[in-house]
């Protein structure tokens, strides 16, 4: 789900009130202007051209009164809108005051690095391009950027917040219902700005806790032959120079962490659905799927690509 018109977070609902108020007040104003215009125009279509008095002072006086009323009406309307906006802004400050989950999101060209923070280092979780949140719980986000300006935006849950290098930002969310929400980078950030999406999976607190425990565990050891070959390829070709997989020697943090890759919905920040065919397409030539992205073309044998696909498929 990806729309500002279905507000399913506390913050988005506050904003939706402003939207509705604006739509009504501005709608009425527009109708008034257009009605006045239509009357002004049609008046003369009916009246004959020459008999009209040129300078009817009583008409001008009435028009001056109308202008005064119009200025008054605009002022009242704008004051009401400004007040609505101001009060909503205050409400947003105080919404989600007591966060239960804290995570740090770092934007990169063109993917999202996600880290769940915890006082206990062994309970920290690192993932990419996908965040899981418990329904109903206030969430605290630390937003940062590693390169250029990006903007974090999940329209169903809240408005956007720019991620500016050198200026870490705080942001609060409180999703209300379980569901799958889509986020997308909203600040132009270069070649693949179009393919920088984020999945937000809001689930029941139990499901969230179960997911969290799975993320804490290392992925299962590989047993099947092809997957074992895939593991070898991963560790001996270029893959492990950029990516990390928990429980293995691969620990680089240039690209997305792949520890639980098979559990994610999409490849390359929402570019493709995560299935073996798409993964094969991606590994064969990431530059064809997402031109300009930072993953280089690594030339591999067909068999090795199949093996890699099998191995990545075990990372649950």
């Amino acid at each position, binding site marked *: 789900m990806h729309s500002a018109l279905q507000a399913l977070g506390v913050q988005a609902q506050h904003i939706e009130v402003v939207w509705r108020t604006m739509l009504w007040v501005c709608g009425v104003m527009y109708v008034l202007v257009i009605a006045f215009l239509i009357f*002004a125009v049609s008046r003369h279509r009916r009246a004959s051209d020459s008999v009209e008095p040129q300078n009817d002072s009583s008409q001008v006086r009435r028009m001056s009164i109308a202008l005064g009323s119009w200025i008054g009406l605009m002022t009242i309307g704008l004051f009401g809108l400004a007040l609505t906006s101001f009060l909503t802004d205050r409400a947003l400050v105080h919404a989600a005051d007591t966060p239960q989950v804290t995570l740090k999101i770092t934007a990169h060209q063109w993917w999202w690095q996600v880290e769940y923070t915890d006082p206990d280092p062994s309970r920290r979780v690192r993932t990419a391009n996908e965040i899981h949140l418990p329904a109903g719980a206030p969430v605290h986000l630390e937003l940062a950027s590693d390169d250029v300006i990006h903007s974090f935006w999940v329209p169903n849950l809240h408005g956007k917040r720019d991620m500016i290098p050198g200026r870490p930002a705080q942001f609060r969310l409180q999703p209300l219902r379980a569901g799958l929400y889509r986020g997308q980078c909203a600040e132009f950030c270069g070649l*693949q700005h179009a393919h920088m999406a984020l999945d937000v999976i809001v689930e029941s607190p139990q499901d969230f806790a179960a997911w969290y425990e799975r993320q804490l565990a290392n992925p299962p050891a590989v047993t099947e032959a092809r997957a074992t070959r895939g593991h070898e390829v991963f560790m001996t070709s270029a893959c492990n120079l950029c990516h990390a997989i928990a429980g293995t020697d691969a620990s680089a943090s240039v690209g997305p962490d792949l520890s639980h890759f098979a559990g994610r919905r999409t490849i390359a920040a929402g570019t493709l659905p995560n299935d073996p065919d798409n993964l094969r397409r991606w590994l064969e030539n990431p530059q064809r799927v997402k031109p300009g992205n930072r993953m280089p073309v690594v030339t591999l044998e067909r068999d090795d690509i199949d093996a890699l696909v099998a191995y990545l498929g075990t990372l649950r």
Partner: protein
Amino acid sequence: MSVRDPSLDGEWLDEATTHARLEKTWSAAPGLWGWLTTLDHKRIGVRYIVTAFVFFALAGLLAFVMRLQLARAENHLVGPDLYNQLFTMHGSTMMFLFAVPIMEAIAVYLVPLMVGTRAIAFPRLLAFSYWIYLFGGMMLWIAFLLNVGPDAGWFAYTPLSGPQYSPGKRVDIWAQMITYTELSGIAVAICVIGTILKQRAPGMALNRMPLFVWAMLVMSFMVLFAMPSVMIASTFLIMDRLVGTHFYNPAEGGDSLLWQHLFWFFGHPEVYIIFIPALGMVSSIVATFARRPVFAYPLMVLALLATGLFAFGLWVHHMFATGLPRLGNSFYTAASMVISIPTGIQIFSWIATMWLGRPRFTTPLLFVVGFIVVFVVGGLTGVMLASVPLDLQLHDTYFVVGHFHYVLIGGAVFPLLGAVYYWFPKVTGRLLDERLGKLNFWLLFVGFNITFLPMHYLGLAGMPRRIYTYSAGLGWDGLNLLETGGAVLIALSMLLLAFNVVKSARGGAMAGANPWNADTLEWATPSPPPTFNFNHIPLATGSHPLWDAERLQVMRGLKLDERELVLTSVLDARPDLREPSVPPSIWPLLAAIAVGTMFLTSIFTPWAVVVGMVPIAITLTAWFWPKGRPEEEGER
């Protein structure tokens, strides 16, 4: 005039003799030399207008390619690299090479006529400004054709536009194009301000000045205050990129938000720099075709001034999502909402003028009615964007794309096309075809709304700006295809306009001096006007010189065989001085070549700035070399 001085314009001379002698004094040299050296504000104005419309067509073409790319999901017509260049070039060309120059160009052409003077103030500076503008625009477009077109957006946010993330020359080209066009914009603003404040016809006190001239005055002052900001911003950017400064580099103590402040401190007034002249055009057209002065003139003037002032207090509403202090943001919300009051007053007054008058629905007035219907939508969505919380949802989505096209096309292009239909007969002596004009209007009106209205919904449905493609499952395809269909209609309407202009310029009905029975002074002289504008300097005996009296009163006594103007006092326009106007000169062109070369080569080496100063100094010295005339030597 008791003494018969044969060198002066006097009652004893017949009109034909006066005309012939003025013609001899003011006309440029024949042929190419005259073309390169002329200082006639009408020729330079037309040159500006034609150039700006060429850039308009080119940028429109880019928009059309973007619409084709977005017509369906996962389209592969253009790739991300080209698409980023397309929208950067579209925005930069429309804003810097079309919108501001065309408004200034129309001021250059019309203001001297409308205030009743023979020439624009500082004509050599005007000539210089045109060449600089032309060189800047050509540099940008030649670079684009060589695949060195800028690709960081027309707003070029750092650090994306900085040395690390935009290597190569693309952004340098962009930043230097800004320097060219803003330099030329400031130069024109100075010419327009000088003309309006010191060269108005005797009697045209400020409180009698046409609203069009007021609008151009406000616009010019805004240019003076806004453009330096972006020139500084782009110069800092160039320095970051070329000589290793760190104005925008947070790692070295710079700040990328500095760019945003400097850019939007220019960028928001920029919108009003484009919009306010259009308001002036609307006032002229409404008064003429309602056959009545615009309702509530003093309030209209105050509204223009207030808009010009408030426009400098809104820039942060482009930055609500950056996380600036909330109390500050609330101030900018209030300011952004307040600015809609003066605009609301003006909209009311124009409708009231139509109500009180006897409107004739010619093509120009039709464009004005279309302007009100379209622009008010943009104004109201602007009020929505002024709200901090709502802006957090709408910012950088297609809602904003829809909004500002309603403001800029609705608020500026509709009045501009109305102005083209209205003043074309003054410039060419022939009327544009009315039937084609009405068809032109309706095609544009329908096509425009089909293209841009659905964008508001798409933005709310989550479609961000500046994406070269989108996935099929998001439900954005249908409306995007519809929008592309609307763009076809817009393209057709523009082709129709071009056809109408070409056809009518050759065979349109002859216009005569005042085909619309309008009230302002540009209609007091033949169409097209002679090089010296008026046989005799007109007197403004009222606010509507051509309506107030049966016969226009004139002033005599200026020299016929030398270029001479009458300067008047700033407030009351009382005759003050007789001032010579400079003769044609090649030096503005040569100075522009020297300055342009320095700007261009400075992209490649900072030493170009040092070496380039030499030809600039030479050309400027020659430009300003005293001619040894008695006035200048103090031997009067």
